[in-house]
């Protein structure tokens, strides 16, 4: 089973092999837990929400197109659950109208960091995540901790790819501001 792709396992679950779903849970538990903890910033909440994500994934597994990749599909379910959790906590709309999605951007304004810069950004993120807006925190978490590509992030967040770049760039700008305020730069 270990050589099987997620998509193959998902297809078997779709065909009635319910037990195989445990393999998918095991494969994604750590990733989604990390995503939840970094994005939600509430470890107590994370476990229940992750369980809910897997339950939703099982309920809706027949909507998964096995010719596509499983990872963005389950991350999309997780994203929805996390956003709902943040909304509940805030008792009101959190993400609102996003003008980044309205206007076209000629190209993604963010480019990949080199390894050293990526490590620095990750270290800063660790210390400043709490103070970033959820709108910018999420793409940064997906990019730096989960290694999600722009393309997959566009599918998870359901935004244009150029907007992914804009959010990452603005997220990093916000991160630099927070880091400067906290005197985290040498």
């Amino acid at each position, binding site marked *: 089973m270990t050589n099987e792709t997620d998509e193959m396992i998902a297809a078997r679950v779709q065909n009635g092999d*319910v037990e195989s779903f445990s393999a998918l849970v095991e494969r994604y538990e750590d990733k989604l837990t990390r995503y939840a903890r970094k994005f939600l910033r509430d470890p107590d909440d994370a476990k229940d929400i992750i369980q809910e994500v897997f*339950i939703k994934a099982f309920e809706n597994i027949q909507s998964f197109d096995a010719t596509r990749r499983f990872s963005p599909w389950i991350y999309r379910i997780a994203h929805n659950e996390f956003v709902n959790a943040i909304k509940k906590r805030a008792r009101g709309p959190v993400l609102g109208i996003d003008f980044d999605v309205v206007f076209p951007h000629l190209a993604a304004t963010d480019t990949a960091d080199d390894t050293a810069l990526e490590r620095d950004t990750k270290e800063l993120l660790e210390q400043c995540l709490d103070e970033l807006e959820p709108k910018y925190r999420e793409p940064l978490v997906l990019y730096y901790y989960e290694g999600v590509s722009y393309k997959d992030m566009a599918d998870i967040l359901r935004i244009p790819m150029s907007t992914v770049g804009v959010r990452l760039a603005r997220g990093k700008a916000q991160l630099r501001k927070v880091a400067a305020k906290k005197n985290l730069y040498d």
Partner: protein
Amino acid sequence: MIEQDPKKALTRGVMDAIHSGRVQMRPRWKFVLSGVLAALGVAILLFTLLFIVSFAIFTLRQTGALFVPEFGMRGVFVFFAALPFILLALLLVFVIVLEVLVRRYRVGYRTPLLVSVLAILIIIGLGGLGIERTRVHEMILREAMMPGELPPPIAIMYRTGAQHIPDVYRGTIVAMMPGGFVLLDENGAGTTSVLLSPLTQLPPGTILQPSEQVVVFGDGDSTTIRAMGIVQITD
């Protein structure tokens, strides 16, 4: 017994919920049905939008309002006053609903909102113009003018859409006369004398002669129109 490994606990929790029947897989047909309904919704909305746009252009052409903006500010004002605002409001609502439906699809959410709205507007604008040129609305209007041929709401909609608007007269020249011509109303309602003056605007190439279809822009009453501008309808 307390589960020691939290990782296994989560897997067990999920699988227990599945085994106990508390959590059930939704059947595939529900997703297929929802996909088909959404696609059908997109198709119906597109069709409705194409109808609205083509009908709006048709009413503007039928009343002659489409031709008057070339006669200066007053023409532009008459054109805007003649716009079918209820249809435009409906158009706006349907475009928003269509945009929401389209964003379910990858091609929808991967495209910036402004671009996809513009794409929808261009598609329905060009499509509506194409449908309007097929004269399908003209045929429906002819039937609408005959009592009992069409269901009342459709007949009323077409008759209202073709109603005369102030300062714009569409018809056929039936005879020339000194200083003007005699115009037969588009719907055959009667004739009116059209008076020309040196100030009457005539686009280059305009030929005024009997049997020509024209739109006259000017002040008038039931017997005489003082033409400020005349457009020959060539189609």
